[in-house]
């Protein structure tokens, strides 16, 4: 009888392997992708134990639950398999250890069950996921009972048969679920960690958030059907455990726009699979009607397809979902590649977005305004335009320069640079849009044209580094222009101003006790990992700084990224209103911002009680107060 449990384990492993191979047939439908298998395999333990657990640990209950149940399950299963080795099978101490491992698993299974019963949190999926605790309990208690019987040497054949049968019911169930049930996440997740499409994100440096350049000569541009996705992207979607962390972080979901990143990933899975189980999580809010065809590998986006275009265009590309996903899934990459097909091949962009893209193409500026008018914000104040001479700082003005409100911020920044006697200049009429917006809207062709033109312009001038107040421009110049062989040292104005203050070139005075809360721009915090400089700078101003519940890399988007303001998909609420409400909860009288888009979005909130001020404006006020 001592062979019963190891036999069960071998059958389980065999079944799981068969199920995995069946599933792998689906992954292989995807396009080829280069994968560094060896390096990935070596890095797996670190990726799992450090990177994954760093995210999992944000939910203390889930973290404990997962450690206990997954650790117990692995340990118990491995240990039980060892019983096949003769000396061990007869050892009662060994069986006691096995019992202990099953006991831990059982405890974990109880935690899993307690989370889902009697009432399951909204963000978790039901359906097939609800049998997970049942299977776990059966396997754990069956295994526990069998091991205990053996440990205590109770030779009751019927009892042992019953226990092993219970364990087999649970265990085989779990193994079977590897293909399309909850246990898929374990196998696909491990493989995904090895074959991750963005291995650099585990390197511990700045986040790896730059979009991958698209080959504009490819026969088909962007993703039309799941088969256009790389195979390891399909694999990555299978890693989803439907925990709904992405959904809770998604600003579009919160605003009642028809987007739910979890559902989107599941729709992509279902679009590639003929017999995928019905989705049982939260839907797209205010879901638009679609007539989804039943055959797999059909085009994914469209009113007559699985995902409505409004879903695709609701995303602000804020990366909150990516930041929160314990399975390291890259939602934004998927969304942008789907958008690329819509924009480049079908010309199916929302009307306002189309007009903006036309402007970017024909006027190199998203409002179709003259490039020379970018410096008008200075309202007559002298603004050095770069010439032959090398300057220390090239000030990249960005789109905000055309905005009346944001002109105030730029004037403050220019004034501070002058006060600190910084040797700086602007490009003047030579500055084009960076193409960031075009890129997020999927218009890679326009983006690449603009990027090449900007790279050529920058190559003509000599400067030590680029300072910009626009995190979107910063991200493009610093990270995305690399694909064109251009590397610049790009500094955000908050970091640069902090530097000036620390060098004593600017002397802030105390602003006197007002309370301030800082809203992290997604493209600075999550995309570039810069959350400290703005806070340090604020702390120098004698302000009482309070944090919103969501801040730093886990901050919530203002709703202004990814072309969402021009796509303008209606929801129940507006994202900036939600964010300003969060700011109001802190009681702060000032919401400090560090991005032209955040400024516009948050200032546009009606009935707000707090002032919206860029850090440059606050610093200027404090420097002037300190005189």
């Amino acid at each position, binding site marked *: 009888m001592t062979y019963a449990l190891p036999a069960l384990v071998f059958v389980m492993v065999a079944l799981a392997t068969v199920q995995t191979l069946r599933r792998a047939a689906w992954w292989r439908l995807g396009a080829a992708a280069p994968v560094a298998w060896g390096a990935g395999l070596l890095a797996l333990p670190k990726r799992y134990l450090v990177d994954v657990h760093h995210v999992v640990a944000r939910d203390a209950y889930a973290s404990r639950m997962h450690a206990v149940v997954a650790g117990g399950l692995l340990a118990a299963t491995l240990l039980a398999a060892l019983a096949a080795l003769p000396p061990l099978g007869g050892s009662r101490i060994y069986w006691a250890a096995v019992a202990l491992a099953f006991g831990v698993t059982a405890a974990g299974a109880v935690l899993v069950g307690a989370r889902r019963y009697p009432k399951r949190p909204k963000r978790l999926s039901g359906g097939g996921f609800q049998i997970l605790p049942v299977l776990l309990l059966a396997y754990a208690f069956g295994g526990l009972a069998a091991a205990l019987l053996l440990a205590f040497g109770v030779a009751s054949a019927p009892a042992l048969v019953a226990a092993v049968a219970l364990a087999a019911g649970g265990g085989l169930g779990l193994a079977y679920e590897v293909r399309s049930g909850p246990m898929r996440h374990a196998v696909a997740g491990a493989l995904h960690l090895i074959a991750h499409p963005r291995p650099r994100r585990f390197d511990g440096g700045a986040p790896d958030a730059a979009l991958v350049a698209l080959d504009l000569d490819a026969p088909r541009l962007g993703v039309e059907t799941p088969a256009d996705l790389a195979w390891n992207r399909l694999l990555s979607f299978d890693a989803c455990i439907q925990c709904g962390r992405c959904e809770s972080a998604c600003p579009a979901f919160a605003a009642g726009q028809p987007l739910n990143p979890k559902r989107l990933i599941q729709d992509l899975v279902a679009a590639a699979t003929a017999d995928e189980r019905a989705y049982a999580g939260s839907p797209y809010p205010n879901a638009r009607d679609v007539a989804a065809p039943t055959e797999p590998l059909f085009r994914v986006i469209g009113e007559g397809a699985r995902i409505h275009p409004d879903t695709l265009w609701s995303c602000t590309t804020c990366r909150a979902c990516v930041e929160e996903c314990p399975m390291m899934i890259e939602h934004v990459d998927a969304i942008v590649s789907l958008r690329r097909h819509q924009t480049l091949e079908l010309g199916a962009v929302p009307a*306002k977005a189309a007009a903006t893209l036309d402007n970017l193409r024909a006027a190199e500026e998203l409002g179709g305004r003259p490039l020379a008018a970018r410096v008008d914000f200075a309202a007559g104040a002298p603004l050095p335009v770069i010439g032959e001479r090398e300057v220390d700082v090239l000030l990249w003005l960005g789109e905000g320069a055309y905005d009346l*409100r944001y002109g105030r911020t730029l004037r403050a920044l220019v004034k501070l640079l002058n006060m600190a006697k910084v040797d700086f200049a602007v490009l003047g009429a030579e500055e084009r849009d960076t193409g960031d917006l075009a890129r997020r809207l999927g218009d890679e062709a326009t983006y690449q044209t603009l990027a090449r033109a900007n790279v050529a312009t920058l190559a003509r001038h000599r400067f030590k580094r680029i300072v910009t107040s626009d995190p979107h421009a910063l991200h493009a110049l610093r990270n995305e222009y690399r694909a064109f062989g251009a590397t610049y040292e790009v500094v955000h104005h908050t970091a640069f101003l902090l530097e000036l203050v620390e060098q004593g070139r600017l002397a802030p005075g105390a602003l006197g006790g007002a309370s301030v809360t800082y809203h992290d721009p997604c493209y600075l915090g999550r995309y570039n990992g810069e959350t400290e400089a703005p806070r340090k700078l604020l702390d120098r101003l004698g302000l009482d700084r309070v944090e919103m519940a969501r801040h730093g890399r886990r901050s919530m988007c203002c709703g202004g990224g990814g072309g969402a303001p*021009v796509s303008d998909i209606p929801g129940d609420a*507006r994202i900036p209103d939600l964010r300003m409400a969060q700011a109001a909860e802190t009681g702060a009288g000032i919401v400090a911002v560090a991005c032209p888009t955040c400024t*516009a979005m948050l*200032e*546009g909130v*009606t009935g707000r009680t707090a002032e919206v001020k860029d850090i440059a404006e606050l610093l200027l006020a404090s420097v002037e107060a300190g005189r």
Partner: protein
Amino acid sequence: MTRARRDPRSERAAAARPGLTRPRFELFARESGRRPRRNPRSETLAQQVEGPSRLRLDRAQTGRAAAALAPERAEPAAAPAPTTIVVEAPAFLVAVVPDLAGGRLSLHDRQLFDAARTLAGADGGVIALVGTEGAEFGPAGADRTARVAAPEGYDPDARAAAIAAAMAALDLRHVIFPETPDGGDLARRVAVLAGEPLFADVEMVAAATLMRPARGRRVEQRAAPARLITLAADAVAPYAGAPREARDEPLDTFAAPASAILSAERIPADPARTPLGLADFVVSAGAGVTDFDAFRATAAALGGTPGASRVLCDAGLMPREAQVGASGTVLSATCYLALGIAGAPQHLQGIAGCDHVVAVNTDLHAAMVERAGLAIVQDAQAVMPALIAELAREREASA
């Protein structure tokens, strides 16, 4: 109706005390966010008309919106009745072809006469080629009028043929059309029919040279006046000299060729359904409006297309298509009536192209009040019924 219309603006202007030391303002110095007070001296300077050595003032050039915009007021009505100028035997004729939309001369039409006058000089005469008779043409600056037969219905080719015939019969030296949808269309038809060059969209008129923009307004082209000319709106002032006799010049009747247009039916504008971007007059509600029945009734009574600020559209109180602003519709309306709208930058972007703005707002410091040509600091809920009542009263008074 003889009730003297109150004009608060001119009342205030009349009450202004000139001569005090006060800052001078450049007339078109728009950078000043404040509202400059009138400076009669610089106004007079700005009214000087380029050209002849004699001092000519263009009273429309006041730089003050209200006076400049009212065509009726541009007429030298207040001056003592001047004697009619008679040109007995003009050496040549310069023709104008006004649109006469609705049977009346528009401001643009009147400007044609001034341009024609410049080209006619001292020896030539200005002749209006019109489809209808009208007493207006003399005061507007016509020495002669000729009736070109207007065919019934819509047949622009027949009109063009009639004008081409008149051009030959009267040996017209120049023919000036307004660069409007109708006038511009007619001018081009005449040009290809008569095989004459057209100098289109002229922005500057002098006796010996015309100027027009080209290549997306990046260059200007100058040439001696062509035979056919279209004149851009507001490039020159309306004719402001003494009335002329507008003597009738007989023309042979003209048989129109057969037309390929089988039927034409005019569909009048329905302000309630006009797309916002095309509407000429938009009545718009913001968060300061709570009574939507009154709002809709007001828009209907005024014949305006209803619009709204984003707040109302987001709240579902107004349809999304009604949203005015950066993320809604950018207007090209002549006039915008803003009821309870604060004037957020994103909203103002949508009305940047509107010539005139009326604001009703309880807040004197609202940005919309600053933007408006007429601002009423009052509750919109009180003003809307008053507007409806006033229109009803007018209707009764005329019944």
